[in-house]
């Protein structure tokens, strides 16, 4: 997708030169080359993240080239330097190449992170997704539904309402309906938390982890029946 927008922007630049706003064909090639360099330096990123990061870079480079006659590298530094700064400003971890991994000054935390990133990607490919993380994101709404429903069913069981349900069609339908409502509320909550601050997300993840208890309880009850 970003490749397409990139092409558009570069085409836009050459149109610009025709109408006299000052981007020559060699400048267009320079922009495309610089973009390619930045893209290559970000090759280890998840493609969706990388495309998002580079989405409006082509137009930005065209603006820079139009405002400043000096070569792009003179103003922006080498593409790899630009990519490293971009990565850091965007809050992404710096890349660790195999050569850098042998650097004795690296802390064990850095090594652990590099290992986890690599495992994340290689294990993820077995699922057909880019990384385990990406696969888990797809499963997230299912977890929300399960956690909400299980909380409701556990509460009903705790209040003595549920044990009767196998012999009472009305209660069974009622319980399942309430579980569904609970599940949907939980999905809404999950979505809301996603859009909130990092602190809220951490607290919510911890609370959410405790929901494993009702989920296991409810599943074990169902499997027994």
């Amino acid at each position, binding site marked *: 997708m970003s490749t397409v927008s990139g092409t558009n922007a570069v085409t836009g630049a050459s149109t610009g030169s025709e109408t006299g706003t000052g981007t020559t064909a060699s400048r267009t090639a320079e922009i495309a080359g610089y973009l390619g360099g930045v893209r290559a330096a970000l090759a280890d990123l998840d493609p969706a993240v990388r495309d998002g*990061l580079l989405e*409006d*870079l082509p137009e930005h480079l065209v603006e820079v080239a139009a405002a400043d006659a000096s070569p792009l590298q003179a103003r*922006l530094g080498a593409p790899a330097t630009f990519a490293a*700064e*971009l990565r850091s*400003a*965007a809050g992404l971890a710096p890349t660790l190449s195999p050569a850098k991994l042998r650097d004795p000054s690296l802390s064990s935390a850095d090594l652990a992170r590099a290992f986890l990133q690599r495992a994340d990607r290689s294990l993820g490919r077995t699922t057909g997704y880019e990384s385990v993380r990406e696969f888990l994101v797809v499963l997230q709404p299912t977890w929300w539904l399960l956690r909400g429903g299980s909380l409701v069913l556990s509460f009903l069981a705790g209040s003595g309402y549920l044990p009767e349900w196998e012999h009472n069609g009305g209660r069974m339908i009622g319980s399942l309906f309430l579980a569904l409502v609970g599940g949907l509320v939980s999905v809404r909550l999950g979505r809301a938390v996603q859009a909130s601050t990092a602190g809220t997300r951490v607290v919510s993840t911890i609370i959410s982890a405790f929901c494993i208890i009702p989920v296991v309880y409810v599943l074990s009850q169902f499997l027994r029946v």
Partner: protein
Amino acid sequence: MDATQLLKGVLDVAVLAVLNTEDGYGYDVLRRLRSAGLDDVGDASVYGTLRRLYSAGALTTYVVPSDEGPHRKYYALNNTGRDQLARSAKVWRSFASTMDVLLTEQGVPA
């Protein structure tokens, strides 16, 4: 002291503040930050910060087509962004005045 190190911590606030008065595209935001006196701010830092604030849900975007060049993606603050700006500005002001008082009290000339 190296101003670029300080800038790293406050670039979010600076970018949000610049967008508070008027929506802007990447290059425009950079230009406004520089003309406000943040000469050291780098293209990639501003651009990366915009993308991060956008992913975090603090900014919205819209594209404005242009006849004489590439289309421009404008960034605008939404409610989350305005809240973040208000909170961060409060933190920054209190921090800056604490530092001011500290330096004055310790007899460091301005």
